[in-house]
């Protein structure tokens, strides 16, 4: 029993940190209905600000901690509340895209300032021995963190029970409009919720960095995964249960890490614990207890293109001609491999487009599917299988995991599918990539098909595959399945009254999309003769979603714009800092695109236009009239009455 004690102590301590983080996450989700995938990035930002204040600006730690929790956290909360308002009017899929954009932007910003390598984080809490449990010493830091966790939970519970603001926060969860009618502004109440949530996030980030004694943006961003593991146990509802959930996840993680030392095959399983907890939670928690918070908003159909059909056809024809001529063009030259990369990703982007735009579902693990495809190719080629068959098997290998994720999550709703895919992608990266059945420790050898070793000839083969996959998606969109999916976004009730099963269609499209992602991964893997785990970093799954969001609303635009943005342009830039900035721009643009998914920006723009037209009737018109009285009437001085544009919401 004694050998378990250190693990239990570490588990409980880190669990308390997860619990604090999860409380912030659940509080903001419940009050605003926006699940912040970037919660971990907020934790990371808090930790880095603390690091700068304490280790770079040499402030004493209590000052640094106070600044982070009482100034940085609230400021962040105020910004996030505004963002949540912008995302409140869009379908769940785009709420997730928006917060994914925030994650990408924040992570790039941190990388830009501090670099992507981890730094030493000096522990600041006292390290002396507080007491010992059967020979294992427990230091003050661990005691303080645990007490902080429980104190935070206790304070929140008291706050919600006894204070008026806390009561109003619970009221806003029940019925924001009614709260407004009783005299409390829901916006103000939500702002305080975000302030508390962000301060908790910042605090948990600092504590987490301190327990790890290092600060690493990628590790800290993952704190959101531990937090949603803990939040699952709290059913995304109960705040006090978050701290319990956090401790359960923390304990499980450490105990698993102890047990698996004897089994190399299971190495890394401890890191996947939160995902497993989430997955079991999604399976066993009754559906009625996991209702999504907030208004459910149906996606608006994409308006018909304003460009007349002949022009569009001509445009696509020209694009195809340019694509055919690419290897010969003067500006391509040594950049051709980047074009090849981009072409392999066309399949990935159209598959994601099919999922996100057509069926309104989200996958945060598409690069994980791509990795499975690449591994399939590598291993099958290792058995001497021909190229085409190996690629298809790579794609087929994605279907079982796609089914495994989609079935339990689709039972619930879009948000939980997104969480399940995010968790799956991360588990794949942390647990599976290093195993011999995937990439192993080194890299996996792959081959191009015979006769295509030259980049230029391979370019044409890849172009053919890309065109084929675009056509495949267009056909699916026009097929019965596509009609069902489009009908789903128009009126799910109408579909059900027609007797069509919606969930089967959703699962099918998820599997098709996973299959295509696998194909794209296999092609990508074949480009350079070998693939390794670092090629398929899970963060890329988030980046591609952000890029897709800004690449227009149609299949063709997604197929053309997105790969160019993500692969060709960075290749020309070359400078890594510039590329990080570009990635940050993708994140910011994705947030903007998500907020605008239902034409959200039309409202402020129309207001502005209306105000400008009012101005002509107001002081401007008066000025014009004065001019007229002075100079006599002139043609120029005729007041122009702009049409009054009604603001519709």
């Amino acid at each position, binding site marked *: 029993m004694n050998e378990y004690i250190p693990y239990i102590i570490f588990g409980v301590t880190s669990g308390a940190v997860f619990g604090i983080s999860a409380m912030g996450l659940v509080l903001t989700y419940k009050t605003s209905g926006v699940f912040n995938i970037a919660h971990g990035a907020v934790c990371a930002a808090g930790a880095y600000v603390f690091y700068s204040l304490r280790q770079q600006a040499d402030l004493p730690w209590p000052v640094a901690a106070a600044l982070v929790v009482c100034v940085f956290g609230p400021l962040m909360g105020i910004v996030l509340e505004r963002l949540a308002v912008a995302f409140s009017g869009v379908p769940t899929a785009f709420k997730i895209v928006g917060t994914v954009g925030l994650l990408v932007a924040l992570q790039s910003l941190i990388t830009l300032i501090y670099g992507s390598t981890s730094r030493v984080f000096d522990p600041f809490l006292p390290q002396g021995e507080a007491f010992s449990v059967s020979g294992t010493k427990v230091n003050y830091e661990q005691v303080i963190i645990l007490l902080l966790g429980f104190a935070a939970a206790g304070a929140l519970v008291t706050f919600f029970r006894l204070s*008026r603001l806390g009561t109003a926060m619970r009221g806003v969860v029940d019925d924001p409009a009614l*709260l*407004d*009618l009783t005299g409390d502004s829901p916006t103000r109440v939500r702002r305080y919720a975000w302030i508390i949530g962000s301060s908790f996030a910042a605090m948990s980030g600092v504590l987490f960095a301190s327990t790890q004694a290092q600060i690493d943006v990628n590790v800290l961003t993952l704190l959101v995964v531990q937090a949603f593991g803990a939040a699952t146990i709290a059913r995304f509802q109960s705040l006090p249960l978050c701290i319990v959930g956090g401790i359960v996840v923390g304990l499980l993680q450490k105990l698993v890490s102890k047990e698996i030392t004897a089994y190399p095959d299971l190495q890394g399983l401890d890191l996947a614990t939160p995902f497993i907890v989430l997955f079991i939670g999604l399976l066993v928690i009754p559906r009625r207890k996991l209702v999504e918070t907030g208004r459910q908003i149906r996606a608006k159909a994409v308006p018909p293109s304003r460009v007349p059909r002949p022009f569009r056809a001509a445009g696509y024809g020209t694009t195809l001609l340019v694509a055919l001529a690419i290897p010969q063009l003067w500006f391509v030259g040594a950049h051709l491999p980047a074009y090849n990369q981009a072409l392999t990703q066309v399949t990935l982007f159209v598959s994601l487009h099919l999922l996100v735009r057509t069926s309104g579902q989200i996958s945060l693990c598409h690069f994980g599917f791509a990795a499975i495809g690449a591994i399939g190719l590598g291993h099958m080629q290792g058995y001497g299988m021909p190229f085409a068959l190996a690629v298809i098997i790579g794609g087929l290998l994605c279907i079982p995991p796609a089914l495994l994720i989609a079935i339990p999550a689709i039972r619930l709703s879009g948000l939980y599918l997104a969480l399940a895919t995010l968790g799956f992608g991360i588990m794949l990266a942390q647990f599976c990539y290093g195993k011999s059945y995937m990439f192993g420790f080194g890299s996996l050898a792959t081959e191009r098909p015979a006769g295509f070793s030259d980049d230029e000839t391979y370019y044409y083969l890849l172009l053919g595959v890309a065109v084929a996959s675009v056509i495949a998606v267009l056909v699916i969109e026009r097929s019965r399945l596509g009609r069902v999916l489009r009908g789903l976004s128009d009126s799910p009730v109408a579909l059900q009254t027609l007797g069509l099963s919606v969930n089967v269609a959703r699962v099918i499209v998820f599997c098709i999309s996973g299959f295509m992602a696998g194909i794209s991964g296999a092609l990508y893997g074949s480009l350079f003769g070998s693939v390794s785990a670092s090629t398929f970093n899970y963060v890329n799954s988030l980046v591609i979603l952000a890029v897709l969001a800004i690449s227009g609303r149609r299949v063709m635009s997604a197929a053309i714009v997105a790969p160019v943005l993500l692969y060709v342009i960075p290749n020309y830039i070359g400078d890594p800092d510039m590329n990080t900035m570009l990635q940050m721009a993708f994140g910011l643009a994705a947030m903007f695109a998500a907020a605008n998914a239902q034409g959200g920006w039309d409202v402020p723009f129309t207001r502005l236009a209306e105000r400008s037209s009012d101005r002509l009737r107001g002081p401007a018109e008066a000025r014009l009239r004065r001019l007229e009285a002075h100079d006599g009437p002139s043609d120029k001085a005729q007041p122009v009455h702009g049409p009054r544009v009604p603001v519709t919401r």
Partner: protein
Amino acid sequence: MTLVLENLAAGYGGTTVLRGINLVVPPSSVVALLGANGAGKTTLLRVASGLLKPSAGRIHLEGRDVTGSSPHQLVRRGVCHVPEGRGVFPSLTVRENLVLQSVAGNESDAIARAVSAFPRLGERLSQLAGTMSGGEQQMLALARAYIQSPRLILLDEVSMGLAPKIVDEIFEFLAMLAQSGASLLLVEQYVTRALEVADFVYLINRGEIAFAGEPSELDAADVFKAYVGVGL
């Protein structure tokens, strides 16, 4: 308190529900707003309390233009809207509901007032509002119209779905509110009962005011026509 709606239009999304509405609620009077399902009664109340921004027209409260104010700002000006359905927070206790209904800093006094108006609530202060009976929930929702001492009360079908005995109790309560000097704008399904207490009546038909005047000027045929859409 005087409420004046001037040439008001409002709707949801691209749909216009109300157009060209002119309506006055004079001080210390009861105004009944009658009309068929979908005529726009609830929408009109939502606009008057700020829940819905009008697409055209003005809202004046005691001569002050309050168009575009949010509901909580109007609450501070003395407007109280008891919405359709049960206007309570179901997962909060009765006491917590009353706390939110009261003015900050004045909570215990407010609870005492609510209990004096509806003694039944006093027995249930720590019960979750959502677990009470429909009548009790409506009493809790109406308590707001008393403890905030509002000067304009908008009531949206507060008697809907309740037992006749409780409806009597609610109408007694409304009469008491009217006597206290507040103005009432009443949307009701019990047309005759509403006309009994009303000083003025508006008939609304397909988003437009079809009749405005005193209840005595209104005959049953007009009411029937407004509800059914055809004459007798």
